[in-house]
């Protein structure tokens, strides 16, 4: 499978990449790790006239703690996130989600920024990023802006990024005390993508009840979403099996369900509920 012809440029600074995008925004695509874009180009689903390869911008690969946040550079690979001992301590959902992606080779090359900017409806990161209430820092030649995760995913393979913008950094607020996280996923048996994936973040109050919960769901609809109905049902209540199971019934409320060979719409609704329950139970049990 050979992609269509394209021109290629590999800038060595972010400014250079941004001015190339400003100049060629309609025909250019950003190439990060390439593990979403290159398969699409080989199938000729994507035929960009120009590839702007940001793979040489090594200073966009980092994991830092700053301002009460974990800040992750967009070019950080899944493997770097998966293998960070520090993240396992301070924000374990990031390595847990990273480890659930594809396979070793894919995680060595694929990047968090590339995955989020591609916004595959079955990708893992969007669920975690939503549950963590992260913020996307995007830049263009004219400036920088922050987009909350809940506004970032717009439609199938479509984000709030403008054609002249690059996702530069993902900012994750450090979880408050008494917070537990989990990511529960049914992988597609061949591709490893999420048939359904649910990320949950649960914070208990001093009395053990649910102070707040946030739940991100991927694989179920055209884009990943926050399951607000589940969150609302959990808030203020006990975190027993029954309460969690009750709340999880809202996991696919109000969304158009995907339907494909892996799962019908009805089966997906069922899976969303089951995986929401599992993610929330596991998150609640991990509150230290």
């Amino acid at each position, binding site marked *: 499978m050979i992609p269509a012809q394209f021109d*290629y440029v590999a800038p060595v600074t972010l400014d250079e990449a941004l001015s190339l995008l400003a100049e060629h925004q309609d025909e250019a695509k950003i190439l990060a790790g390439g593990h979403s874009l290159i398969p699409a180009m080989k199938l000729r689903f994507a035929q960009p006239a120009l590839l702007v390869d940001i793979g040489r911008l090594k200073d966009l690969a980092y994991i830092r703690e700053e301002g009460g946040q974990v800040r992750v550079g967009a070019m950080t690979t899944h493997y770097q996130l998966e293998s960070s001992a520090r993240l396992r301590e301070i924000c374990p959902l990031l390595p847990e989600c990273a480890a659930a992606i594809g*396979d070793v080779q*894919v995680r060595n090359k694929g990047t968090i920024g590339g995955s989020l900017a591609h916004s595959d409806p079955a990708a893992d990161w969007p669920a975690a990023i939503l549950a963590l209430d992260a913020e996307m820092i995007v830049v263009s030649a004219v400036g920088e802006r922050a987009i909350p995760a809940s506004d970032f995913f717009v439609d199938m393979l479509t984000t709030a990024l403008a054609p002249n913008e690059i996702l530069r950094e993902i900012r994750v607020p450090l979880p408050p005390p008494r917070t537990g996280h989990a990511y529960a996923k049914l992988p597609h048996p061949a591709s490893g993508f999420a048939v359904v994936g649910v990320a949950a973040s649960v914070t208990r109050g001093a009395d053990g009840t649910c102070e707040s919960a946030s739940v991100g769901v991927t694989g179920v609809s055209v884009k990943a979403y926050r399951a607000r109905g589940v969150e609302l049902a959990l808030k203020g209540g006990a975190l027993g099996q029954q309460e969690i199971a009750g709340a999880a019934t809202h996991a696919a409320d109000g969304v158009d369900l995907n339907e494909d060979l892996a799962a019908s719409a009805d089966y997906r609704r069922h899976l969303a509920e089951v995986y929401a329950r599992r993610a929330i139970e596991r998150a609640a049990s991990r509150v230290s």
Partner: protein
Amino acid sequence: MKHFVHINVNGADRSHEVEPRLLLVHYLRDVLGLTGTHVGCETSLCGACTVLVDGQAVKSCTMFAVQADGAHVKTIEGFAADGQLHPVQEGFWERHGLQCGYCTPGMIVAASQLLERNPAPSREEIRHGLEGNLCRCTGYQHIVEAVEYAARKV
């Protein structure tokens, strides 16, 4: 427009003018004649085309040769040194880790990365570390044993 790439492959500096759309696996096989790296599924799933790029196991069907400009690439041809098999190669030989051999180069490259990251893996960890490589002959049992053999040798 073609681009010049300079890539160190198995210790030798190579440079060629290539189309940007040339995949790394085709550069290795068709331009350099290193046909040990196999083309399997072509969809980033099977791992037959696995090579090391700057020490990281990657699927060379999901990377353009231009992205490897300036990189060090190691293919299966770079594993044996001075007529001595690499311990992972020896493990596959000794423990019958292959039947048809199609997946073997990718398996060996991925297994070498696994042992570098985790020198004493459990059977479960070996299976997990090779999740990106498919074998349709062996049922994996002998492959796991081959990697265990290599872990004891390394």
